[in-house]
C-alpha cells in the first residue's frame, strides 16, 4: 500500500506497525477499504478490525479529523447539549488497528479495484464499503444552493452549520420569524425536522417569546407528527404554524439575499431561514456508478451488497434498502451485518443471518422525550419491518422523562460503540 505517512492519524508506532505488519508476515492480508467515517463507515471499519484481530487490513478514508454527530445537534440548538460533546475523533478506531486516512475519496475504479484519493494516491481493495452519507439534490429548493448556506443554513450535515444556525436564531430580532423549509421523502432522520422545530421553539420561548416559527413542508404527513403537534400545542402554544402541501408547502422558493421565502407565489419576509433540501446519496456513490435514478444506491437486503458490484457494499443513508429510516442507529445496525459478512468472506469466519433494528428518540421540551422504533429483516426484494412501536400521545411525565434519559444513554452508547 503506497500511503504517505503524514496522512495517517495516530501515533508513529501505530502507523509503522500497521504498515510493516504485512511485509513482516511475508503475505498480503485481504484488504477492506471504507469510504466515509460516519455512523456507518466508522462502525464497519472498527468491527472488522476488532473482530478479525489483524487478519484483515482495514483502511478508513474520511476527510474530517473530528466527526460531529448530527444526532443531538438539535439538542445543542435547544441548549441541552454542548457543541463540543457532539465531536468524536478517530483515535480509538485507529487503535483497534484501522488505518485512518484523512482524505477525500474522489473516484472508484471498479475494474482495478482501487479507490482514488484527492491526494492522487490509489488504495487497492478486495472489498469496498461506501458510506458517504447524503448530498443535496441541486435545484430542489429554487433559489438555494450550497453557496447560500451561510445565508440560509441547512444544518443537516455534521459540523459547524448548526452553530451558525444557532447563532442566527439567538441574534434574531424580537418577534422575528423563523422559517424551516422541510425536505421531501426520503431524507435522513425522519423525525429530525420536527425535533428541530421543538428545540428552536424551546430556545425562542425563553429568549424571544413573541417570535414565530413557520414550517413549509411538501409532505402530507411526517414521522411522529401527532407527538410533535401535541408537544407544540402544550409547550409552545401559538408559536408554530405548519403549511403542508394542500396550502402550497410543496411549491416553495427562496431568495437568500433578500431573506424571502416564496410560498405558492406569496412572498414571506423572514429573519432566519433553515433550508433542508431534497437529498440523495453522497456524491462518491454516484461517481462510483453505484446509484440509480432514485439518487440512492440500491443494495441487496440480506447483506447491503451493491446490486451493481459484488465487491462493494453501501450502507447508511446512501443506501436504498427498503423500510429502514435513514438514521445513525440504522447505519450502525447495517454496519454490523456488513462487518460479519465481509470478515466471513475474507477470513472464513462464520456468517450469520442479517438482522437489523432502529430506534429514534426525539426531545420535545425539557424532560419530554419520545421514541419510535422497529426491527427489520431481509425480504425478497428489500429490507422489511418486522415489529414496530411508537410513544403515545398523552403519556405521563415520568415516562417521558425516562425516555429522555434513555436517549442520553443511547447517545453515549452509540458513540462508545463507534468511537469509544
Amino acid at each position, binding site marked *: 500500500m503506497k500511503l504517505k505517512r503524514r496522512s495517517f492519524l495516530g501515533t508513529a508506532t501505530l502507523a509503522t506497525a500497521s504498515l510493516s505488519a504485512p511485509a513482516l508476515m511475508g503475505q498480503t492480508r485481504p484488504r477492506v477499504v471504507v469510504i466515509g467515517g460516519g455512523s456507518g463507515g466508522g462502525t464497519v471499519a472498527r468491527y472488522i478490525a476488532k473482530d478479525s484481530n489483524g487478519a484483515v487490513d482495514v483502511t478508513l478514508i474520511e476527510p474530517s479529523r473530528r466527526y460531529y454527530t448530527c444526532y443531538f445537534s438539535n439538542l445543542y440548538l435547544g441548549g441541552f447539549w454542548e457543541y463540543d460533546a457532539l465531536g468524536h475523533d478517530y483515535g480509538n478506531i485507529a487503535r483497534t488497528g484501522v488505518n485512518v486516512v484523512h482524505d477525500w475519496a474522489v473516484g472508484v475504479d471498479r475494474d482495478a479495484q482501487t479507490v482514488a484519493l484527492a491526494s492522487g494516491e490509489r488504495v487497492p481493495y478486495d472489498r469496498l464499503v461506501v458510506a458517504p452519507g447524503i448530498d443535496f439534490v441541486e435545484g430542489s429548493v429554487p433559489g438555494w444552493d450550497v453557496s447560500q448556506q451561510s445565508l440560509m443554513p441547512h444544518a443537516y450535515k455534521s459540523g459547524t452549520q448548526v452553530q451558525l444556525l444557532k447563532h442566527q436564531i439567538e441574534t434574531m430580532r424580537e418577534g422575528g420569524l423563523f422559517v424551516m423549509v422541510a425536505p421531501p421523502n426520503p431524507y435522513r432522520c425522519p423525525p429530525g425536522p420536527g425535533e428541530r422545530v421543538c428545540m428552536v421553539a424551546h430556545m425562542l420561548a425563553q429568549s424571544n417569546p413573541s417570535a414565530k416559527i413557520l414550517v413549509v413542508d411538501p409532505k402530507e404527513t411526517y414521522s411522529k407528527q401527532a407527538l410533535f403537534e401535541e408537544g407544540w400545542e402544550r409547550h409552545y402554544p401559538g408559536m408554530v404554524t405548519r403549511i403542508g402541501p394542500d396550502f402550497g408547502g410543496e411549491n416553495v422558493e427562496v431568495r437568500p439575499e433578500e431573506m424571502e421565502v416564496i410560498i405558492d407565489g406569496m412572498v414571506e419576509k423572514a429573519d432566519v431561514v433553515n433550508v433542508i433540501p431534497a437529498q440523495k446519496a453522497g456524491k462518491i456513490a454516484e461517481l462510483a456508478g453505484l446509484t440509480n435514478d432514485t439518487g440512492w444506491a440500491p443494495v441487496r437486503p440480506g447483506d447491503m451488497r451493491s446490486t451493481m458490484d459484488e465487491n462493494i457494499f453501501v450502507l447508511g443513508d446512501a443506501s436504498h434498502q427498503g423500510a429502514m429510516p435513514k438514521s445513525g442507529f440504522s447505519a450502525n445496525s447495517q454496519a454490523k451485518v456488513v462487518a460479519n459478512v465481509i470478515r466471513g468472506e475474507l477470513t472464513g469466519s462464520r456468517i450469520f443471518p442479517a438482522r437489523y*433494528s432502529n430506534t429514534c428518540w426525539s426531545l420535545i421540551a425539557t424532560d419530554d422525550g419520545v421514541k419510535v422504533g422497529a426491527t427489520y*429483516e431481509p425480504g425478497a426484494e428489500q429490507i422489511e419491518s*418486522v*415489529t414496530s*412501536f411508537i410513544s403515545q400521545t398523552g403519556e405521563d411525565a415520568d415516562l417521558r422523562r425516562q425516555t429522555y434519559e434513555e436517549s*442520553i*444513554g*443511547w447517545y453515549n452508547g*452509540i458513540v*462508545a460503540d463507534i468511537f469509544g
Partner: protein
Amino acid sequence: MKQPLKLLFCIGALLAPVQTVAQAIPIGDATAGAEIYRRECASCHQIGDGAQHRIGPHLNRIFDRGAGSHDDFRYSEALLRQGRDGLRWDLRRLDAYIENPRALVSGTRMSYRGLSDPERRADLIAYMRAYSDQPQNIPEAAPTARGREVNLSAEILSIEGDIEYGEFLSSECTTCHQRSGDHAGIPGIVGWPEEDFVVAMHAYKQKLRPHEVMQSVAQRLDEEEIAALAAYFRELGRE
C-alpha cells in the same frame, strides 16, 4: 433493579428439582444461613425459642414487622422515624438493610458494617424467615419464596449458549448498552449471571417486562439466541 436480580440469581441456583415449584424459588439456603447468623448477628440479636432483646432487639417475627415496633426496646430516633413513615421489614428492605444498614436508615445505632455478598445475605434471610409467621398458618404472612419472573423450563435454562453467535447478536445490543458495562440512562448488561440474562430476556419476550424497545428486540430472539447472548455477555464480563 439490580439488587433483586442478583438475589434472584443466587437463589435460583438452589432451585428445587420438584416440578411443582418451578415458579417459586426459595429465598436462600437456610442451613447455610444459620451459620452466617451465628457469625454475623448472634452476638447482638437473639432468635428462636425464648429469644430476648439484648444489644439489639430479638428477631423473631421480623418479617412484616414495622421498623422500630417493639415497645420494650430503645431504638434510634432514626429507625423510629422510618417506622412511623411506614418502613416494614419485607424481603427487599431486609436485604438492603443487611447489605448496608446506614444506606437504608442513616442514623441507625446498629453498628454493623453490612454483608455485601448477595448470596450470603439470601441464605441469612432464608434462615431468619423461618422464625416469622408462615403462610401455612397465617395466609397473609410474607411469602417464604420468591416467584420467578417467568416460568421457564429446565431445558431452556440449561441451553448452552453459542458464544460466537452471541457476539454477532450482541452488536444489536451495543448500539445502546455499552460494551464497557458503563451505564447512564440505559442499564449495563455486561457480566450478568447467565440465568438472570435468560430470565430477563424471556420476560421481555413474553411482554411481562414493560419496555417497548426491549420487547421488540426480544420478540424475535429464539431460545438459542437468548442463551447465546447470555453466554457472550457473561464472557465479556470476565475479560
